[in-house]
């Protein structure tokens, strides 16, 4: 009671000086300037935080001081009018409650109530301006006052805490809502994983990792593997693997476990509420994963259907491709056998030549078909080697030489010796198929030219003829599998469109491009662009 006077004087003087200074306190501004000049944002932020906390304290103190001042003023005025001391005390009660509301911690409310009590005692109870009381009733009033103040303080404190909690909850629910709607737009496993990890980190403030189980491989982390197998939480603070620094939560739906989420608990484990939220996110994750799986299965079965369709078309095509030359071979040879003595030499020779030519055809066809079945199975075995362009062209020329008939084959090689990375056998077949196409479809007596030249970073091969061109309406489909470009009448449709489809597949498997040169006026020209590394320098 005696010391309280000193305390009161101390408080009073401090409050006054700070009230006068306020926020425009010069030294503080100078400090801020200096820090800004240093350019260190982090320490600036730290400083800012500390100052604001300091300011916060100042503000609370300021508020209390104001309330104290007003209450005292009001009480004094009323006492002069003649209002009794009991009512004046109630004014202070209001003041204390206001202090509780306006300040953050219980400490302020308690200390303000003590201050108010002593003010009341000092100013308004007789004997005035002393800390003594005449009427012992006042002691009871003062005690009750303190109790009331205390209760008010704790109530407002609780209220504030509750409000904070509600606000936090509202924030989290908003976050969950955003996370939830974010999940709706995800596609692809990778997107799901990174989005989930980001959201969970957002939600819990902890470093997170999401491990999804692919096929049957085991997780390298033993604890994660255990968590997955038993679909139970383990790790930090749990029964199993409690000594680990991380918490392992299984990602599971009712029917299936997909993986494990790992939380780094460097700043403590997950609260019960946080676990609840994590479970909510997990159920979203499982929904999305299930959706992804269904999508994948749908795509796979779609592909399967496509493959079956291609297979049956291929079978039909093979039948056609093989039967056509075989008809010639069978027919001619059989006839010669049966009518050997009756056939004149010239006819016999011509038939024999046909048999020879048709069997060359068959040879080429078999090569194409073999390649085609390899492509059908989803892979095309390419063995790339650096080959000389001249060799590729001469190789193709040698293979077709016997079936040129009345056609002429011209070759144009690049001025320098050039190398490209190709599978020689496959690429030669591409050129052979294109030359064959010219032989079949360009008409009689045409000149077929195979040329190659570097154009920028590509080696461009051109196979062209000066015969009848491809009709406009067939241009779009020319490379479609199994399309027959029967643009010459009669039974000249050999080999379906397999040849060209294979060309496309092989060229594209090498990373190249094959097109029809639309600017070629008389006849047809195919253009192959193959990627080229630098020329070999000797």
């Amino acid at each position, binding site marked *: 009671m005696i010391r309280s006077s000193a305390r009161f004087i101390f408080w009073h003087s401090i409050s006054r000086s700070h009230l006068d200074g306020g926020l425009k306190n010069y030294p503080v501004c100078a400090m801020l300037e200096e820090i800004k000049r240093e350019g260190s944002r982090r320490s600036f932020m730290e400083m800012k935080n500390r100052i604001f906390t300091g300011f916060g304290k100042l503000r609370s103190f300021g508020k209390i001081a104001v309330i104290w001042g007003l209450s005292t003023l009001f009480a004094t005025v009323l006492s002069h009018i003649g209002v009794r001391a009991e009512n004046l005390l109630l004014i202070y009660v209001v003041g204390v409650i206001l202090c509780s509301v306006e300040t953050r911690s219980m400490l302020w409310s308690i200390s303000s109530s003590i201050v108010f009590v002593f003010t009341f005692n000092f100013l308004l109870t007789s004997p005035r301006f002393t800390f003594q009381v005449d009427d012992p009733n006042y002691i009871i009033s003062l005690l009750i006052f303190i109790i009331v103040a205390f209760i008010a303080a704790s109530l407002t404190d609780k209220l504030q805490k509750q409000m904070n909690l509600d606000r936090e909850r509202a924030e989290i629910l908003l976050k969950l809502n955003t996370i939830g709607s974010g999940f709706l737009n995800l596609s692809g496993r990778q997107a799901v994983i990174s989005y989930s990890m980001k959201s969970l980190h957002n939600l819990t403030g902890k470093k997170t990792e999401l491990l999804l189980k692919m096929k049957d491989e085991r997780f390298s982390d033993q604890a994660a593997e255990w968590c997955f197998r038993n679909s139970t939480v383990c790790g930090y603070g749990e029964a199993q693997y409690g000594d680990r620094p991380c918490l392992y939560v299984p990602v599971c739906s009712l029917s299936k476990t997909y993986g494990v989420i790992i939380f780094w608990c460097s700043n403590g484990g997950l609260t019960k509420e946080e676990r609840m939220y994590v479970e909510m996110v997990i159920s979203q994750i499982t929904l999305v994963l299930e959706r992804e799986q269904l999508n994948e299965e749908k795509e796979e079965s779609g592909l399967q259907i496509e493959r079956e369709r291609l297979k049956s078309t291929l079978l039909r095509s093979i039948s056609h491709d093989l039967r056509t030359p075989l008809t010639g071979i069978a027919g001619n040879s059989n006839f010669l056998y049966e009518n050997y003595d009756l056939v004149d030499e010239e006819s016999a020779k011509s038939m024999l030549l046909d048999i020879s030519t048709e*069997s060359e055809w068959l*040879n080429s066809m078999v*090569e194409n078909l*073999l390649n085609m079945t390899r492509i059908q199975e989803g892979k095309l075995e390419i063995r790339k*080697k*650096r*080959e*000389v362009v*001249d*060799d590729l*062209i*001469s*190789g193709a*020329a*040698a293979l077709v030489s016997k079936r040129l008939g009345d056609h002429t*084959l011209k*070759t*144009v*090689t690049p001025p320098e*010796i050039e*190398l490209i990375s190709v599978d*020689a*056998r496959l690429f*030669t077949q591409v050129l052979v198929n294109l030359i064959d196409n010219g032989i079949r479809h360009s008409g009689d007596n045409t000149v077929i030219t*195979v040329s190659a030249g570097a154009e920028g970073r590509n080696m461009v091969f051109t196979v062209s003829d000066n015969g009848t061109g491809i009709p406009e309406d067939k241009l779009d489909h020319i490379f479609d599998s199994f399309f027959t470009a029967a643009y010459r009448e009669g039974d000249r449709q050999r080999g379906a469109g397999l040849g060209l489809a294979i060309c496309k597949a092989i060229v594209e498997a090498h990373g190249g491009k094959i097109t029809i040169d639309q600017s070629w006026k008389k006849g047809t020209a195919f253009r192959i662009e193959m990627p080229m590394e630098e020329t*070999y320098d*000797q």
Partner: protein
Amino acid sequence: MINDISVLVIEDDKSIQNFIRITLKSKGYNSVFADDGLTGISYFYANNPDIILLDLGLPDIDGMEVLSQIRKESDIPIIVVSARGMEQEKVAALDEGADDYLTKPFHAGELLARIRVALRHKSGMIKQEAAFELDGFYMDFEKRRLIVRGEEVHVTPIEYKMLKLLVLNAGKVLTHHFIQNEIWGYDTNDDYQSIRVFMANIRRKIEEDSANPRFIITEVGVGYRFTEN
């Protein structure tokens, strides 16, 4: 016409056997046929043929096995037969000691040419001539000169070596590996890229149309061959 060369044909397909028999007969060769590898090996021991035609796709044992068995005993010329697309098989056989190869389906002319060349090289009838001449291609080994279609052609030392190697083995296929070893003495792992480029350079110097070569034939995936006629 009959000569006293006997050919051992190790081949399981009957119609191919027939075709070969008739072709060989047309040139007067004697032929003996074995339907599988083991029979082939025993016929080799029994009949002492002059040359062997060996199909690599035999029903009982691997053709390579037959090849190595026979090679252990003898230097007899062996020509292997294999399907198109089995280049690695052919190269392996050639590097294992086979002299030449044929790709199915093959023509009678090719068959006879291979046999002729193989016999010629093995019979020791070829001694180093002073020069080689073929259809406008003239190579003088003593003077180290090369004249093609009337004009002198300058080649680098390595190109000369390569050309000489091919020419001395005219008609016979030489694998990349063989050329590499003969010219450089050691093997390489650059996929024989340098050989390819050297060869392409040589071709450009001596061929009229390098895409339609007259002298040096590229056997895709296998090696090179200098024509003999």
